[in-house]
């Protein structure tokens, strides 16, 4: 074996060009796989970094027709008292606070949680302590990143004071560097104690935002689900007014964290696996060509007594060495690729800070090196070992056997097929992206600036801010909304229409609720279709009014004028156009717009300002900041974006997915092109003599060119046929990512087939031109 390794290394060293191309080709495939696997490993495979994370779950209540929702706080109390399956149930509220009393106020992601949170998670702080049950509400546990930023020179920030939204807090502990709870897009840095307001204890309409729980050891999730189901039924019987139709859902915490990206990551892992197969096919082709050139060497080895297995082993040793060499290069490529990916997409990948190379990744790398080494090396090894001894000894340069040629053709067909599948996948995502981009949003988004203004101001103050901003030169209109459109956020509520029978909760009319100032519609160009808009006259002292959107009017007032109709949420005074609120791929839902002036409590988390400008909105940022500070110096502004950026951000997941699929498809296309070029080029070199004969017999330059290109197109054509079958089978997994495009979209398939045809012609053109330039006299003499 050592001899085999020595010979193999010597052989590879003597052919630096071949070795470099093979290693680079494999490294592309292995590196891409390692990069994606390191993400899959960090996100999906590695357990959550809590004590015994398999026992952590999230609780939700289910209420028809809203589906999944938050747990009512009194229900949570009942679950705690009556359930025997759980060690702990902890309610928590993610939010953000303004860190004040520092040079530049900063918006910090926070979590207000019941005091048992850290005990339930089983995580110890690196300094100080976590919450105790008797802690007052003005203590805070800080993250390591926050400690580094704000207490850099302080060996222990425990005992320090910070001010959040004007309220003083004492730091009691510092969490480890990578600790994060909950997992969400913004990185939580402060944890403060939370308890429900006294009125929550008995009002089953008050919901805790989120509830995490820990199962007792040995209790299965199904048993816990059954138990809570029974308790929910009991509560339904006990409190029919509020709890009718309420159920409980228990989801493993790991599913909550990574569930949304699981399918995407697995599809990407599959896609990158196809790239590896294309790499392998390419290198197998190179090895086959090399095996042909080594026919004489193999024959001599065989003549000297090497058995077939021994020869196969020799060839496999070389291919595994190539794969291991590629693996070393792949580590660097994977590290670089992962860093680059996370640089752009850290916010879109949960647990992104936990991604990195670890032993699992290295084991994976070693595994695919050995498997691919054997995989792509086996066919050439067997082919070489089966060569005819007598013929081989007569050969000086080696001539391809028909069988070996067919194998090479087969490998190229496989490469084209795999590239086709990936290109169709990328094509379908691209079409989805383009369709979404072309979807009318219902708003005017050009020259619109948005930013979030922190809470704490009175409702009337927002109107004041709105007026002040509108006075800025270049500003066309300005308005506030509780949440900007396209934030993947919905807040749904029931409403009743006066004069219509009261339905049970499951059948009651439902609408998305929005809270806005009068200028909002003008700022976003949302048209008023009927009635009037909101005005300054709609105040807390006047009867409540609402605007509805077209979708609500269509659904609940199909044949009547809704203007003037009374609902339990206010009188309908106007109908405005539909806007894609949740996301571009979801049709606008029925919506109710409440004036903020009549719903002051809704401004607690701050409001988003929308400014429509006559000039590029970026130029207005400082003027808007100054205007807001002029009215209220304590306000913190963040998330400053143009509306077009907001829309682009809403497509960022798809965009990332599209880029990665496109990258993998591009790699596969590149490798397949190289494969086609290699095979056709090799075939031309082998057929020089035949081409010479044909030219002597009257073939013209175009005949030869056509002959070579025909062969190229046949290879590509067969590849496209198999690729079409493969893509039809595989693209179904993309269905949930597509919008307005079927997974079998004929236009995409046709475009990809045409692209591959063109690429095949280009790949075949160089060898074809070489072939058509063959000098028949020389070619015939070559014999």
């Amino acid at each position, binding site marked *: 074996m050592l001899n085999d390794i020595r010979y193999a290394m010597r052989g590879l060293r003597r052919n630096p060009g071949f070795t470099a191309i093979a290693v680079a080709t494999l490294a592309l495939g292995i590196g891409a796989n390692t990069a994606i696997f390191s993400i899959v490993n960090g996100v999906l495979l590695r357990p959550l970094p809590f004590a015994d994370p398999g026992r952590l779950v999230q609780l939700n209540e289910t209420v028809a027709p809203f589906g999944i929702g938050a747990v009512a706080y009194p229900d949570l109390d009942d679950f705690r008292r009556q359930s025997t399956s759980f060690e702990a149930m902890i309610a928590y509220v993610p939010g953000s606070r303004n860190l004040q009393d520092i040079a530049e106020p900063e918006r910090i992601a926070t979590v207000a949680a019941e005091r048992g949170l850290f005990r339930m998670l089983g995580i110890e702080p690196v300094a100080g302590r976590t919450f105790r049950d008797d802690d007052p509400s003005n203590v805070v546990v800080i993250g390591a990143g926050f400690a580094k930023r704000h207490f850099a020179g302080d060996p222990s920030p425990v005992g320090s004071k910070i001010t959040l939204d004007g309220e003083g807090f004492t730091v009691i502990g510092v969490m480890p560097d990578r600790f994060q709870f909950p997992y969400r897009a913004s990185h939580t840095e402060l944890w403060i104690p939370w308890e429900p307001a006294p009125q929550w204890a008995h009002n089953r309409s008050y919901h805790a935002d989120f509830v995490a729980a820990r199962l007792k050891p040995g209790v299965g999730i199904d048993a816990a689900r059954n138990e809570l189901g029974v308790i929910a039924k009991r509560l339904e019987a006990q409190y029919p007014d509020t709890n009718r139709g309420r159920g409980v859902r228990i989801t493993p915490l790991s599913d909550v964290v990574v569930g949304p990206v699981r399918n995407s990551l697995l599809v990407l892992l599959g896609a990158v696996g196809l790239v590896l197969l294309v790499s392998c096919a390419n290198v197998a082709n190179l090895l086959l060509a090399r095996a042909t050139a080594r026919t004489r060497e193999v024959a001599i080895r065989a003549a000297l007594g090497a058995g077939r297995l021994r020869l196969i082993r020799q060839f496999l040793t070389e291919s595994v060495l190539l794969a291991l060499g590629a693996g070393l290069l792949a580590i660097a490529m994977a590290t670089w690729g992962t860093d680059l990916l996370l640089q752009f997409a850290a916010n879109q990948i949960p647990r992104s800070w936990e991604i990195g190379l670890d032993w699992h990744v290295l084991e994976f790398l070693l595994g695919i090196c050995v498997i691919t080494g054997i995989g792509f090396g086996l066919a050439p090894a067997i082919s070489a070992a089966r060569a005819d001894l007598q013929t081989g000894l007569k050969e000086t340069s080696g001539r391809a056997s028909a069988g070996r040629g067919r194998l090479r053709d087969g490998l190229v067909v496989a490469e084209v097929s795999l590239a086709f599948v990936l290109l169709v996948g990328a094509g379908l995502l691209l079409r989805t992206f383009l369709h979404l981009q072309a979807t009318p949003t219902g708003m005017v988004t050009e020259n619109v600036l948005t930013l979030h203004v922190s809470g704490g101001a009175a409702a009337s103050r927002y109107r004041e801010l709105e007026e002040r901003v509108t006075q800025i030169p270049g500003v066309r209109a300005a308005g506030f909304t509780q949440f900007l459109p396209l934030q993947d956020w919905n807040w749904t509520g029931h409403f009743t229409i006066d004069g219509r029978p009261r339905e049970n909760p499951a059948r009651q009319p439902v609408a998305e609720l929005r809270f806005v100032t009068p200028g909002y519609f003008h700022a976003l160009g949302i048209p008023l279709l009927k009635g009037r808009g909101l005005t300054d006259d709609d105040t807390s002292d006047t009867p409540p009014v609402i605007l509805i959107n077209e979708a609500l009017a269509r659904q609940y007032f199909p044949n009547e004028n809704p203007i003037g109709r009374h609902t339990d949420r206010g009188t309908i005074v106007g109908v405005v156009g539909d806007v894609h609120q949740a996301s571009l791929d979801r049709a606008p839902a029925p919506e109710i717009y409440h004036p903020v002036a009549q719903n002051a409590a809704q401004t607690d988390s701050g409001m988003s300002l929308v400014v429509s400008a006559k000039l590029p909105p970026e130029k207005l940022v400082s003027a808007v900041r100054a205007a807001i500070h002029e009215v209220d110096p304590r306000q913190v502004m963040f998330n400053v974006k143009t509306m077009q950026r907001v829309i682009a951000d809403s497509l960022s997941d798809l965009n990332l997915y599209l880029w990665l699929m496109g990258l993998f498809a591009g790699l596969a296309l590149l490798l397949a092109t190289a494969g086609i070029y290699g095979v056709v080029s090799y075939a031309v070199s082998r057929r020089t*003599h*035949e081409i010479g004969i*044909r030219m*002597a017999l009257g073939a013209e330059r175009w005949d030869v060119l056509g002959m070579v290109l025909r062969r190229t197109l046949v290879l590509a054509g067969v590849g496209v046929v198999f690729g079409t079958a493969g893509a039809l089978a595989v693209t179904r997994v993309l269905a949930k990512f597509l919008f307005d495009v079927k997974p079998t979209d004929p236009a995409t398939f046709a475009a990809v087939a045409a692209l591959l045809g063109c690429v095949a012609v280009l790949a075949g053109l160089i060898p074809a031109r070489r072939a058509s330039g063959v000098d028949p006299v020389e070619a015939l003499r070559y*014999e």
Partner: protein
Amino acid sequence: MIRLHNIEKYYEAGYGKTFVLRRITLDIKEGEFVTIMGPSGAGKSTLLSILGMLDGAWTGEFYFAEQPVHKLNTKQRVEINKKYIGFVFQSYHLIDNLTVYENLDIPLSYRNIKSAERAGMVCDVLDRFHIVGKKDLFPNQLSGGQQQLVAVARAVIANPKLILADEPTGNLHSAQGKEIMELFKKLNDEGTTIVQVTHSETNAQYGHRIINLADGWLVN
């Protein structure tokens, strides 16, 4: 049919030129059977390649059927090749992965002849050369003589006015060689002009006259 005047062929070699053919002036009439002889390296095969329009890098004047070949471009020369000329090579040069039938079909396929007509012509030649039974065999399933027979059949299939044969019996034993030469004689009797290159005095006797080459020069 063929008129050569001061044909020269040379390769650039370092500071000078290496001549392969020097001032070849020669007439070959239609219906002639001409033999070119000479030692190895004399330029016989090169002259044959020039006559067959396979080699375009030469100087001098060359008229083929009154057409000035020296003034024609490559495409026009290929047209003359297709229209008038058939080739027979010493090592047959059949295409390995094509059957006898397909090998015979190749020259016709390059002459834009419709497939039905081609099929008729191939069958006719198979019959004429008594190789119908071999039509589905590959070259490596034939003896040398049979392969050369197919090569001659391929050379005549498009009814050329001129057959150029480069050592057509060089790889054959005497009986097979004789058979091929008789075939050439017959074709010549039927009106086909034949120019052969050979080392064999016996084969040379089949021709009407012998042209000798030495070191690229025409010698008497």
